[in-house]
């Protein structure tokens, strides 16, 4: 997407925004991290947008919302859902933001590029469906679709649910995202197989809390797992139980609030597919209580804070046998 950096400069120059929330290069060129820019010089020097701008900026809006003046923020479709959810929970103030909706056709994962046998990359650019990769050994190309982040492969929607200005075209929901395929696959397994799958995954957890810190739905002042007074604090993955406990409760706490932005899995240094826990809850909610997308609007009641008198009984879990049909 061209013009993101230019838009940042334009917004600062016109005074529409006092600062810009965007991306800048991190440790490595493929490691774009969120950054706040207050002057044109900073933007010129550090602002960067490209195929590695996977980071969801909406959580950073919480901090910016507390500052004076207007912050311009670039939101991709999945980030926009998170932003609306934050708005719904009063974590950000709408008038504090000038939202530039950025249409997005997926962000890339350096590890996928490496996995394709390309090493020593120094720069990556996109040309339509093709990625051009400069390496110390020369130029390489690969199909962009093969390098997409996990979350982008199963993109749920290209619709920008909130913006003041659009870069690119407004998009649509992607009903064919197949985002629940993996959940369904697991549901079809026997409980023993599922148990060993999840033990295998969760036992790698090092309790670095990256998933919690990046999650736009994890916005508590004090996380329940940091609450010493309550006796629920636990800081280290000291036993199997605590790994389970942390991830079950975290997923439960974001149920009907998680927009499925996929950041948890993107940032997990241990590559635990945490998004599957969230998607399991989303899938169950959709199936049992009707389709619901967190962050799609400001008015609807989240399913967990709502009920119908003829809701199914919890015993439905035994009947469904974990998987429907």
């Amino acid at each position, binding site marked *: 997407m061209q013009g993101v950096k230019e838009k940042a400069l334009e917004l600062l120059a016109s005074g529409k925004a006092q600062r810009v929330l965007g991306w800048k290069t991190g440790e490595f060129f493929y490691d774009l991290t969120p950054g706040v820019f207050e002057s044109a010089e900073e933007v010129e020097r550090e602002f960067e947008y490209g195929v590695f701008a996977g980071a969801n900026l909406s959580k950073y809006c919480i901090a910016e919302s507390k500052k004076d003046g207007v912050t311009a923020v670039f939101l991709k479709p999945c980030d926009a859902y998170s932003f609306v959810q934050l708005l719904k929970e*009063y974590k950000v103030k709408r008038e504090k933001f000038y939202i530039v909706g950025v249409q997005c056709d997926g962000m890339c994962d350096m590890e996928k590029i490496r996995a394709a046998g390309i090493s020593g990359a120094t720069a990556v650019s996109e040309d339509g469906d093709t990625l051009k990769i400069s390496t110390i050994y020369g130029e390489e190309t690969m199909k962009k679709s093969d390098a997409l982040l996990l979350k982008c492969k199963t993109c749920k929607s290209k619709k920008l649910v909130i913006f003041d200005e659009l870069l690119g075209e407004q998009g649509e929901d992607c009903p064919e995202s197949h985002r629940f395929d993996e959940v369904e696959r697991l549901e079809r397994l026997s409980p023993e197989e599922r148990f060993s799958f999840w033990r295998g995954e969760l036992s790698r957890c090092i309790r670095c809390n990256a998933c919690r810190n990046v999650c736009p739905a994890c916005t*508590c002042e004090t996380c329940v797992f940091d*609450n010493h007074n309550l006796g*629920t604090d636990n800081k280290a993955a000291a036993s199997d139980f605590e790994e389970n406990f942390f991830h079950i409760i975290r997923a439960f706490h974001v149920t009907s609030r998680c927009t499925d932005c996929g950041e948890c899995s993107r940032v997990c240094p241990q590559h635990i597919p945490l998004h599957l826990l969230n998607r399991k809850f989303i899938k169950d909610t959709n199936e049992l209580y009707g389709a619901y997308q967190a962050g799609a609007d400001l008015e609807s009641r989240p399913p967990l*804070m709502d009920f119908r008198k003829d809701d199914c009984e919890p015993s439905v879990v035994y009947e469904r046998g974990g998987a429907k049909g």
Partner: protein
Amino acid sequence: MQKIGVFVCHCGTNIAATVDVETVAKTLGKEPGVVFTTDYPYMCSQTGQQMIQDKIQELGLTGVVICSCSPRMHEQTFRKACHKAGLNDYMVEIANIREQCSWIHKDKQEATEKAVILGRAAIAKVQLNAPLTAGTSPVTKRALVIGGGIAGIQTALDIAEAGFEVDIVEKQPTIGGKMTQIDKTFPTLDCAACILTPKMVDCAQNEKIHIYAYSEVEQVGGFVGNFHVKIRRKARFVNEDVCTGCGACTEKCPQKKVPNAFNLGLDTRRAIYIPFAQAVPKVATIDPDYCNMLKNGKCGVCAKVCTAGAIDYKQKDTTIEREYGAIVAATGFNPIDLSQFDEFAYSKSPDVVSSLEFERLMNAAGPTGGTLLRPSDGTHPKTIVFVQCVGSRCEDAQKGKSYCSKICCMYTAKHAMLCREKYPDTDVYVFYIDVRTPGKNFDEFYRRAVEEYGVHYIKGMVGKVVPENGKLKVQASDLLDNRQLHIDADMVVLAAAIEPDKSARSVATMLTASMDTNDFFTEAHPKLRPVESPTAGVFLSGTCQGPKDIPETVAQASAAAAKVIGLLCKDSLTCNPCVAEPNELMCNGCSNCEKVCPYGAITYIDKEFRGPNRTTLIRRVAQVNPAVCQGCGACTVACMSGAMDLKGFSNKQIMAEVDAICR
């Protein structure tokens, strides 16, 4: 660390036979914080209680655990006893070792082990207990009655009688409700107006009662004892204080073609009107849908003829705000819309009427001056067919109601009887499915209609009514005779089902009072608390709670008034101290708790907090109104961070119990 005393009750042999109480007492003595244990045959006896009190004072106990029967039995007893000894009520925990241990187990060892564990859980909990004091909230000594029908009138009169101020809000221009439209009342056949209008006048003249007619409740805030209500007074375009009710305007108004709602559209009235002669307040109202002056500024006749100068075409709706201690819902009923029942030709023939329309046709103040005439041609009907259960007991929710409307059997008997009495030359048929006449002198009344007045009661139903050559061809079944009947009737009267007034739903929402699927208000307990809503401070009067006849309505109205008086007599209300409480430092202002609160007890405020480096931060945090909170705990689970906690059943306490049990 608490100093805990543990008292194990034998309950005679009820507990001691299966639980080794001595062992329990001895084992629990080893628990941390326990400074005293004992067992005693009857803890709840005077001596038992005295022993607890003595030990509290002697040892300076800060917590007491009593292993005895269910807390549902004696929690209050023991709390009171400890209170007398200076220990806070909420520092007492009961371990239920009778109902949930000794009575259900036979093996003494097993039961003893379980009793110890239950005792441990109670000790673990009491370790974390904190003294709680019940707060109080003041009571505004004024009641609001929503709806000014016979139910609302009776409730208001009774409350006023006890010396409290009452406001009646009625959406129609006059109070009186449905009963004003009724001709005679069963089973005594006295005239409805004759018994109702004196009560209406009493309301108007009672200094304690304030009538806001032609008004609607717009917003309700607050809670029991402290409701804050906005009432919208709709513009009458007539100054209520100045109008004398002389009626000159209603005679001179040139717009004569307005369907008369009071007579259910069977005749017409003017654009400026007084619904009926005995209206209270007796003031004129301009119907803005028909008044030429209001519609296009041409006319002004009423202003010219009004010697009092009461007409005010520029009048606007106004809103008044009032404080109340209690609210009574008396929103009443309406007959259902009969247009769904085209087999009875209700919309095709004016001679097919609803029972309420029939009341007007029989009434001396009605469109025919009390002579029963067919609406179509003004002739006297010779054959009249009454159809019962039209829309009642109907499974099809699109058309009717599944319930029995309760009053139709009796009023139909009344109608049939009155017809035969006034016009002995008429043939009267009543088609019934069942005749339901429970009530004092009710069945006698129905039998009189059959035996003395010769009304033809036929067990069966009318299948269809076809208007043909000025007659109504009625095809019906006679099940006892296994015949199909064909009657050429002059008039057909349909006993329409009754349903709650449409406004009830929005009133219930404002009051956070619950309703059933038929939109009747739900009572707090179907048998034991029939005139109270589950929402504290909201009471139910009349048909808004379920179908009722006049005597039942009046009885319930007085019952609701008694409940209101009981509440308003108190200067303050003691609140349940086991309520939710947010930790503001941890609250993240997400509003999830507010969404699940059934009482609207949670609000949010922006509050200043000290930030890092001497800065201040403004954060949105939850506030719980302890007078409104009932302590269900729904919010505590909706709160992710655990900022919201429930006093008396805190997260920590419950987890301590879990730990003690699973240990």
